[in-house]
C-alpha cells in the first residue's frame, strides 16, 4: 500500500513509488527536494538553520542545517540507487512569518538566510536547481511524488501549485 512519509524538522528521507514524501506546516525552514527521474527516487531534507559550523555539535545532525543537508541527502539518494548526474533539486520554504523591529530584527530573516545557504550549497555541489518556491510571509505544505517528480505546494490561503 502506498504510504505518505512525513519528514520532520532536522530529518531527511528517501522514497520510491508508490510511496510519497510530505512536509506539513513549513515556516522558515527550507525543504530540499532531490529527484532522479530514471531511478524514480525522491529525497526530502527538512532543515532549520543555514550553517552547521555556526552551532556546536552541528555536524552530528546534518539534515538540520541547509548546507550539510545537501551532501547528506545526496549520499542517502546514492545509497538507494540514484545517480548524482541525473539528480535535480528544488527548494521550498524559507518564509518570514514573524517580523520584528529594532533590536529584535536582523538585516536578513532566518528564512532568507536558509534559502540562500541552500542555493549556495547546491551550486557548490553542481546540482541543478530546477524550481523554487521560497520567501514571503506564509507557511507552506508540500508533497513529493517520486513516480513522476510532481511536487505539490500549498498554503493556508492559496490553492495548490506544482513545481
Amino acid at each position, binding site marked *: 500500500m502506498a504510504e505518505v512519509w512525513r519528514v520532520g524538522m532536522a530529518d531527511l528521507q528517501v522514497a520510491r513509488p508508490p510511496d510519497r514524501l510530505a512536509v*506539513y506546516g513549513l515556516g522558515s525552514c527550507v525543504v530540499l527536494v532531490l529527484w532522479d527521474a530514471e531511478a524514480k527516487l525522491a529525497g526530502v531534507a527538512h532543515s532549520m538553520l543555514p550553517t552547521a559550523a555556526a*552551532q556546536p555539535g552541528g555536524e552530528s545532525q546534518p539534515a538540520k542545517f541547509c548546507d550539510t543537508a545537501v551532501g547528506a541527502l545526496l549520499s542517502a539518494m546514492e545509497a538507494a540507487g540514484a545517480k548524482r548526474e541525473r539528480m535535480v533539486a528544488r527548494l521550498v520554504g524559507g518564509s518570514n512569518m514573524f517580523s520584528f523591529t529594532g533590536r*529584535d530584527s536582523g538585516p536578513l530573516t532566518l528564512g532568507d538566510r536558509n534559502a540562500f545557504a541552500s542555493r549556495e550549497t547546491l551550486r557548490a555541489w553542481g546540482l541543478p536547481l530546477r524550481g523554487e518556491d521560497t520567501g514571503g510571509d506564509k507557511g507552506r505544505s508540500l508533497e513529493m511524488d517520486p513516480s513522476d517528480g510532481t511536487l505539490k505546494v500549498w498554503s493556508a490561503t492559496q490553492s495548490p501549485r506544482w513545481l
Partner: protein
Amino acid sequence: MEPGEKLSLRPLELDALREAGNMGAGRAATALSQMLGRPVSMDVPSASVLPLEQLSAPLGGPEALVGATYFRVHGDAPGRLLLMLGEKSLATVLTALLGRVPAAGQPLDLEAQSALKELGNILCSQYLNALADFLGFPLLPSVPSLAIDMAGSVLQSVAADAAESGAQALVIEARFRQSGQEVPMFLYYLPEPGSLETMLAALAKATGMDPREPRG
C-alpha cells in the same frame, strides 16, 4: 554550560518551573476573564525540556489554522513567548472584543489584527510579570508580531528561531479554557539555554530547593 550541551533537569526543577508557569498562566487567565467578561480557567499541563525539532502542533495537527502572537523576551533571562489560538478560539475572542464575528475564510482586517495583538500583549505581559515576581528579576516582552497561519508553520518558525541561540529548549505550556466552551489557547515560554540556569538559580532561592551542584 557550553552551548549545545544537553541540560537535563531534575524532576524537582521541572516542578518548580511548572509552578512558575502556573503563576504566570493564572494571572494571564485573570486578565483574559476580565477582557472577555466571563470566567476562564487555565492549567499548566507540562514543563519539559526537549529538542526544538520535536515541538509539535497541539491544535488539530500541523495544518490547522491558528492565530499566533510571538514575542522576544528581554531581561535577565531572555527567551521567547508564543501565544496560539485555534480558529474557534479566534472567533470567540474576536466576537467578545469587537462585538462581531470575523468572516470565515477571509483574511482578518486591521482592526481584528490589532485586537489580537493587544490580547497577546496583555496576556503575555501578565504572564511575564507573574514569572518575574516569582523569579525576582524583570522580564520584558518586545512588541508583538502576529501571524495567522498553519499551526505547524508557526511552531516550526519559532523552533528554528529559538534553535539559533541554543540546541534545545524548555517548554512551559499553558492551556486556557472557557467554561462551557472548548476554546483552547496555548502559551509557550522558551527561555534561551543560559536563561534556564539563571531561572533555576532564582527558583532554588525562591523555593528553598537545593541549588544545582556546580558542574565540573
